[in-house]
């Protein structure tokens, strides 16, 4: 399915979803990139997986710190229909909260824990919302632009 077909199909179902334009001077995105309101993520993802578009594979879920806001990016792929889609959700930097898509794709489990560990994004409804990579007792979210590491006995 081409990007345009994907866009019309998704926009029909969810009018709040908008195509995300690349920043001025940036290369155009190869894959269809959509921005959507954070409240609708669980609903949209559930439909993308079970609906006719069959996005059955969550390739990656990552966080981005854009300084004025946080962003969570989902890379989706359909193994059967072989099309790709990128979803972006903007979050408030002070209170980043988003519902978990763990019930849609199991792969989200560790990815969401990593996004929480590195950016402090809280995923509501996650079965085990704990840190995954940093050492025990670690404080702060190291991939935030304003993070300053506290020296400990290993520094």
């Amino acid at each position, binding site marked *: 399915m081409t990007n345009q077909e994907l866009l019309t199909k998704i926009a029909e179902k969810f009018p709040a979803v908008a195509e995300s334009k690349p920043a001025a001077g940036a290369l155009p995105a190869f894959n269809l990139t959509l921005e959507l309101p954070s409240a609708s993520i669980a609903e949209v993802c559930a439909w993308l997986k079970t609906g006719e578009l069959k996005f059955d594979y969550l390739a990656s879920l990552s966080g981005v710190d854009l300084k004025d806001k946080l962003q969570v990016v989902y890379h989706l792929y359909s193994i059967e229909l072989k099309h790709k889609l990128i979803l972006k959700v903007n979050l408030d930097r002070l209170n980043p909260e988003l519902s978990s898509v763990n019930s849609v794709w199991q792969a989200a489990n560790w990815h969401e824990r990593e996004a929480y560990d590195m950016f402090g994004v809280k995923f509501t409804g996650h079965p085990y919302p704990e840190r995954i*990579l*940093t*050492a*025990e007792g670690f404080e702060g979210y*190291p991939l935030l632009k304003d993070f300053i*590491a506290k020296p400990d*006995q*290993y*520094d």
Partner: protein
Amino acid sequence: MGLVLDKAPYIIEMMPGGSYVVTSMDWVINWSRKSSLWPLSFGLACCAIEWMADVGSRNDFDRFGVFPRPSPRQADLIFISGTLTKKMASRVRRLYEQMAEPRYVISMGSCANSGGPFYDSYSVVKGVDKVLPVDVYIAGCPPRPEAVLLSILKLQEKIMTETISHKND
């Protein structure tokens, strides 16, 4: 018993002709220790990949008696080959503590020496000597196999200076 064995070389050394006995025993013990340095098969990051190639047949570390062992209980030597993260530090310390004495540590590569390219990181230990006593440091990112071979020769030199009449460290 341990106390008697620990003190015996010291007492023997005090007796007439005793130092001759002690140095001869030293030589035999040190020679046998340095000739069968068994490292722990253990690695942390990209240096570990290099290390696996190093101990392969091409470089033939076996000619120095260096032969990787899978258990810390059987190992005399631990190569800290790679980036030591803060999360891993206590585990490495534990592996070291499980090794029988005498035990030696070789710090392999910039990461293990000082944190290397990750010096400014929030998660990397700035040198394995913050956690373990290091005998030999090898520079490089990763060190060449020749440098790893040299580190073993250096460690063997160091072992030959040990004496049973007192503890080196």
